[in-house]
């Protein structure tokens, strides 16, 4: 293996330091004995213990998870349907306009999305709470799902669907029995993307949440305004851990599946 030159070593170190030092500081101070965030007074896990006693945080966490699960599921269904129609139905009137419009929320400032949703909910007299956050998160994350799913559908061999029809499937059966199982990895990663987007959204949630429902990011943000506490550090560390474990597992699973598939294909080629 090639050794890194000193220049490459330095740039690598600087780059990763830039990315990770803030998070490392946060994790280190979550194990601080002292209540002062910037003064080290020995190792302790007591803030994690106190976190479990804090009802407000636990409530917010529960709300956040429910919102993330519902909104990412809804967004996955809608986003997959939209992607399917836009990729499959060929040219219909206004197709370019529609496909452009589905990607617009990707670049739309969140403040504007949040404000317009707020106006809509007030207009139709919907009380703000979990339901409104779910709807808002579905709105902005479905376009991410549709981007992920449509990039998979573009490379999908259409003759697979035709084969299913040819063998007696109705179009709906062909989608359920053939298309969906094959594009499932893309649908799942779309769901995961929507889930994380919902998990860490602050701007849109603060427009659409009400007194009855507060999500974790809002709770953290408002708590920090009164001063950073080691409890917040502990909470953030847990969130980092959850996300890291999730990402590593997902990438390991896909990588192993790919490696196995390649080995099988090579073995098959040898028996020719």
């Amino acid at each position: 293996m090639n050794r890194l030159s000193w220049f490459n070593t330095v740039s690598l170190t600087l780059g990763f330091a830039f990315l990770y030092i803030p998070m490392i500081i946060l994790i280190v101070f979550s194990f601080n004995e002292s209540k002062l965030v910037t003064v080290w007074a020995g190792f302790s896990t007591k803030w994690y213990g106190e976190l479990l006693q804090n009802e407000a945080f636990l409530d917010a966490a529960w709300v956040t998870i429910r919102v993330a699960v519902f909104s990412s599921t809804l967004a996955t269904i809608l986003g997959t349907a939209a992607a399917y129609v836009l990729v499959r139905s060929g040219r219909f009137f206004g197709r370019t306009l529609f496909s452009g419009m589905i990607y617009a929320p990707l670049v739309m400032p969140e403040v504007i999305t949040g404000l317009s949703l707020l106006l809509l909910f007030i207009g139709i007299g919907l009380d703000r709470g979990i339901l409104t956050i779910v709807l808002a998160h579905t709105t902005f994350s479905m376009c991410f799902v549709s981007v992920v799913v449509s990039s998979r559908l573009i490379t999908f061999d259409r003759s697979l669907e035709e084969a299913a029809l040819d063998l007696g499937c109705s179009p709906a059966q062909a989608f359920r029995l053939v298309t969906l199982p094959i594009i499932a990895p893309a649908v799942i990663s779309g769901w995961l993307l929507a889930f994380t987007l919902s998990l860490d959204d602050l701007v849109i949630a603060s427009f659409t949440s009400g007194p009855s429902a507060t999500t974790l990011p809002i709770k953290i943000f408002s708590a920090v305004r009164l001063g950073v506490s080691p409890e917040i550090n502990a909470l953030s560390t847990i969130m980092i851990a959850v996300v890291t474990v999730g990402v590593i597992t997902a990438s390991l699973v896909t990588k192993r599946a790919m490696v196995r598939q390649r080995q099988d294909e090579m073995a098959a080629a040898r028996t020719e």
Partner: protein
Amino acid sequence: MNSDVFEPWEDPQAKPLIQFQNVTKRFGEFTAIDNLSLDIFEREFFALLGPSGCGKTTMMRMLAGFETPTEGHILLGGQDIDPIPPNKRAVNMMFQSYALFPHLSVWENIAFGLRRDNMPKHDLDERVEEMLRLTRLEQFARRKPHQISGGQRQRVALARSLAKAPKLLLLDEPLGALDKKLRQDTQFELMDIQEKTGTTFVIVTHDQEEAMTVASRVAVMDQGQLMQVATPDRIYENPASVYVADFIGDVNIIEGRAAPSGEDTYQIDWAEGQAPLTASSSTGFSNGQSCHLAIRPEKVTISAERPADAVNAVQGKVHDIAYLGNLSTYHVELQNGTIIKAQTANTRRISRRSFTWEDPVWLSWTATAAVLLAH
């Protein structure tokens, strides 16, 4: 007529399984199929042959139900199938890319169509096993498509499309992805399976050798039209046009003007200072009508001296030799620059070859060896 010979297209009483009635298919401005009529009979192995873009795949997709004719009708067993969607047709298709379902095992791929018909479990198991035996895939039943070789995938695709015992099986370039040796073996396997199952096969191919090998009849297509529909030997020996003669195999085309010189015999003036050529033809040509003489290279004899009894003989020198192992093709340049190809079997070792580059030679052929074509 000999009843052992399978020739339903010669029998006016026979009812065709498939009828194309003045079918036209347009995609926007482009006409893929142009007012085409064709009958295909039960138990036939029918080949649609043509260059890419000639409309052969469109014909097949219309039979499968993925496209509908713009004008005209397609009948299957006397019934107009235009309004019937692909999943309700007694027609199955084997796709060029095989289109095996990657998430299902070989067994489940073959069972897929049967499950859609809610076949009872016992019958289904039996049918899948039968298909596995027919295509010699028993030991691969539990594997996924990416765990088997290309030739095995091809057989899975065939088994899957035959499992529902369709009235008609469509094969879209079924052997295109296989290497030459495997392709030849598989061609015979296909013919064998077609005979065993008695299914009507329609195959689309651009490989003329493949079409000639497997098919009972071949349709040569060009630009959405049928150029000729006939048995392989008739297509080869009696092509209807220069296009067909040129598309199937190797051919020498000599242009000239016909002059009748007896019953079904014509003298063809073809070049200044050359004696006219003699050819027999059952189709009539008027005096001075322009015509094309098509001669297959293997029907041209090459010799050092002018054969005494030759009806047609021309002199030239060897311009090039293509050595194919079993055969050699001599490209002979005549005095006026025309190149004529002559093919001989290499019955002697190459070191004893009679002719080499630049040798003066005579080419000769009989009056019946060539086909006289109007266009």
